[in-house]
């Protein structure tokens, strides 16, 4: 039994580079679109998997198949809570929820602001230095909206690798949890042993047959 325990320890030691094959979804918001991809923890992307994006009420808004890179991209008509579901078809399914406020202020799609981006282009013209001259023709609100939008885009671009790394790390099999799980099993075994020893002591006569 002791050698068996040793073998078990060696096995656990070999687990450091362990990987699970759970499917996960990475999804983020960039410039009003939901983009991302499905990935298998430990490597690999689901090829030709079904991607379904639905809103909070469960209405299906988008359905497509992933390419070789497992990626998808979808632009909703209006910012809303979205659920991305990727189904690889062989029993691997993953969900990810994107909160509506991740889309930032309602901009870009139609309305008065859609025409706005052209204004600075014309106003600035060939004069590249975007100084007070270029902004002069714009209202404060429009300028503010433009700044908000570019800040949103820049932040989304910068934190995307961070989010990706976090998602991947989050799903990896963790050594501590493996050790904890083994400890739990040993504990359950001990509890069972203790209960069995009580059962043996209690009835000195009679109903012994059940345990034989």
């Amino acid at each position, binding site marked *: 039994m002791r050698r068996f325990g040793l073998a078990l320890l060696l096995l656990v030691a*070999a687990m450091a580079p362990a990987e*699970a094959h759970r499917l996960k979804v990475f999804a983020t918001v960039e410039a009003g679109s939901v983009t991302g991809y499905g990935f298998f923890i430990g490597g690999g992307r689901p090829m030709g998997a079904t991607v379904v994006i639905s809103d909070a009420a469960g209405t299906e808004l988008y359905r497509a198949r992933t390419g070789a890179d497992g990626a998808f991209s979808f632009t909703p008509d209006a910012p809303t809570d979205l659920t991305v579901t990727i189904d690889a078809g062989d*029993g691997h399914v993953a969900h990810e929820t994107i909160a509506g406020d991740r889309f930032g202020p309602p901009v870009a799609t139609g309305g008065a602001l859609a025409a706005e981006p052209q204004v600075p282009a014309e106003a600035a013209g060939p004069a590249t230095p975007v100084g007070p001259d270029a902004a002069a023709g714009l209202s404060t609100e429009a300028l503010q909206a433009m700044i908000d939008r570019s800040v949103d885009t820049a932040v989304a671009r910068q934190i995307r690798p961070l989010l990706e790394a976090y998602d991947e790390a989050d799903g990896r099999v963790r050594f501590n949890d493996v050790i904890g799980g*083994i400890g739990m099993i040993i504990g359950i075994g001990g509890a069972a042993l203790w209960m069995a020893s009580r059962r043996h002591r209690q009835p000195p006569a009679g109903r012994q047959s059940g345990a034989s």
Partner: protein
Amino acid sequence: MAHIPDGVLSPAVLAGGGILAAGGLAAALRHLDEARIARTAILAAVFFAASLIVVPVGPSSVHLLLGALMGLVIGTATFPAVLIALVLQAVLFGFGGLTTLGVNTFNIALPGVLFGLLAHGYVGRAQAPAAMLAAGAAAAAAVAGTAGLVALALILSSADFVQPAKVLGLTYLPLMLAEALITGFAVGFLKRVKPEIFLASARPVAA
């Protein structure tokens, strides 16, 4: 892919798997004596750790199941061992699912118990090389049994799964070989170190 996650199988299959696993569990717990509890816990820990190591094969990936090794050493107690390990894997790693616990336990434990008990008598009597071969064959058969049960569970749930289930079956072929090798050597090791583990004392569990 013996760990079927939540939300894939139909309720009928989930319920059926749950009932079958509960039956196996009840049968096992009635025969669980003290000597077997310790072995069961150790093998549950081995299964828990070993089946977390996943090797990508083609479009899917495989991991060790060790069903036959458990069946050989602890008989029907494979059911509680697998169940406990699967509960922990689902809770700690999101590996598999909670609603599919019954189906997954049954798929992994039943072939192991069947082929383990089938090979048990011969492994106990035979000398090391023959016993290792028999254990390896039982392991390969148990993996094939698990593959069949997983495919069955998927196909019974939805006709869409027929094609993926076939692909899944192919990924189990290399696993059968790996499992046969590992079980064979584990049994050879146990035969040398602790041969009484395969002797008649373990037999009543089969009854």
